[in-house]
């Protein structure tokens, strides 16, 4: 690289092509993707962050301008924000917990041989293909006490004292969207974990069996370690995705009753498009972004620590 004058005659011809191959050609392939992402996501992201420090309210079009941290100060004393934050937490934890464990179970089942496997696989993955608004409407129907079956069945099983409206009870309402989300999200974990399972070399299991390992030992000593990287990345991405996911709640409960299912994403949406207060909505979004980044960093550090051991 340094001894330019000692370059062999042939090499000077090769250099443009080297430059082309490492600097230009790949970018020709990536350019459309990069341009789209930059224009549709990154530019609005910067604008969105800047809104958080401005007064941008379409209902008060003449009171605009920079307000510093005013939006965040309002946020700090906003009871609804803290409620939405704790709801976001429960919504996310509840959804991811059941999605992950049921998805893992399904992946383990699908990784064995059984009769009618192809059909079963297509059927159990189906919820992922159902449009969210539709699953929300269907589950809202199923939970409806006058026309839906679930409250009656739960009452018959003795879980509910009487067939009342779960979605209308502030203490229980969150279970509605969480159930719908679990139903919708199991296939994602099943698909990705199944893919990871299928990449584990079969000889490992043969060796374990010869050594007389129990099923539980095989699972904890071979399967889990192999799955760990996939589990880490999918759980992280899905947590963030679920925390941001407003559609189900938006359609099923609209954040009610009494804000008991209001999560930060639905709060952002209603603040922006019902109250038309884009500045405040952006402040909430920036707060959410900060929390998710913090979560991602903690998880990545943890993962690095755990992998080292």
């Amino acid at each position, binding site marked *: 690289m340094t001894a330019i004058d000692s370059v062999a005659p042939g090499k000077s011809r090769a250099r443009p092509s080297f430059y082309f191959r490492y600097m230009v050609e790949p970018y020709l392939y990536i350019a*459309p993707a990069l341009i789209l992402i930059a224009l549709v996501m990154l530019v609005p992201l910067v*604008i*969105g962050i800047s809104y958080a420090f401005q007064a941008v309210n379409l209902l008060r079009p003449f009171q605009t301008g920079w307000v510093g941290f005013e939006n965040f100060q309002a946020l700090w004393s906003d009871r609804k924000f803290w409620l939405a934050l704790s709801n976001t937490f429960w919504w996310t934890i509840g959804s991811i917990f059941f999605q992950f464990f049921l998805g893992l179970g399904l992946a383990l089942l699908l990784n064995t041989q*059984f009769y009618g496997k192809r059909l079963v696989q297509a059927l159990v993955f*189906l919820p992922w293909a159902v449009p969210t608004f539709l699953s929300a409407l269907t*589950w809202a129907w199923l939970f409806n006490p*006058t026309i839906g079956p679930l409250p009656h069945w739960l009452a018959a099983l003795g879980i509910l004292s009487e067939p009342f409206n779960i979605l209308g009870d502030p203490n229980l309402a969150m279970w509605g969207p969480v159930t719908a989300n679990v139903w919708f999200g199991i296939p994602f974990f099943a698909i990705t974990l199944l*893919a990871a399972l299928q990449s584990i070399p079969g000889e490992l299991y043969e060796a374990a069996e010869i050594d007389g390992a129990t099923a539980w030992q095989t699972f904890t000593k071979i399967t889990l370690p192999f799955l760990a990287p996939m589990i880490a990345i999918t759980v992280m991405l899905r947590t963030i995705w679920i925390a941001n996911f407003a559609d189900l709640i938006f359609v099923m409960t609209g954040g009610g009753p009494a804000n008991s299912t209001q999560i930060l994403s639905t709060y952002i949406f209603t603040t922006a498009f019902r109250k038309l207060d884009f500045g405040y909505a952006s402040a909430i979004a920036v707060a959410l972004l900060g929390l998710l980044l913090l979560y991602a960093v903690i998880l990545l550090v943890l993962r690095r620590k755990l992998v080292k051991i």
Partner: protein
Amino acid sequence: MSALRRSTPLAVTGKYLALAFYVGFALFPLYWLAKIAITPDKLIYTEGTALFPSRVTFENFSTVLVATDFLAYFRNSLIVSLGTAAITTCVAAAAGYAFSRFDFRGKRLVIALMLITQMFPLLMIIAPIYKIVAAIGLLNSLTSLIIVYTAFNVPFATFLMQSFFDGIPKDLEEAGMIDGCTRFEALRKIIMPLTLPGLGATLGFVFTAAWSELLFALMLINSNDTMTFPVGLLTFVSKFSVDWGQMMAAGVLALVPSCLFFIFIQRYLVQGLTSGAVKG
């Protein structure tokens, strides 16, 4: 693959019971959706908890198709979803190919950039996008939806395509290039045919994602002419004072394209992810 272990009858029974549980859980809401759609209006309230309707009608379907704007919504959704899926797959295939085959300056940065887009709350950019789309006069246009959906789906689709390309040996196109093809010719004649399942899976994945998107459609579209299916279905609730039978019939119709696509692609999805996982 790993089923070397002798299975006891009890374990086998347990396995089939567990599978039955998953299939039942997955299909139960869909069954109920279809059941309401074919139940006559008068019976919807009286037979709410019955497993089977005592009478069956297809009136709801004919009403939805003839007397409402759902065919138009259906067409709009089809245009948006097919457009998004086609453009996203092309863009993502190109980018995924570059990720899979080139080692280039700034590669890690570009990948990190794409990962970051998966992390920040999309709701954060909803307001600026609304203002930008309004400013360039694209509110209520299907074009704006296609552009936004494409950008949102490109990162994941790129990673998906990359894992498919990773599953195809590099030697193949190198052999082609030695035989005198340019890289692009090798890509078109040798690699593309091999990655057709991957392209299909990506196409189907993006199609279903675009087909079911609600919030951006809700925000960017409010004229009846350009309404997509999800928005149309939601307005149904207020417009027709919740005619559940018709709404569920429309819902069943909304299910058809995405489910067909999905049943076709799910095998390839697992395959593609597996080849990516092997690579690590």
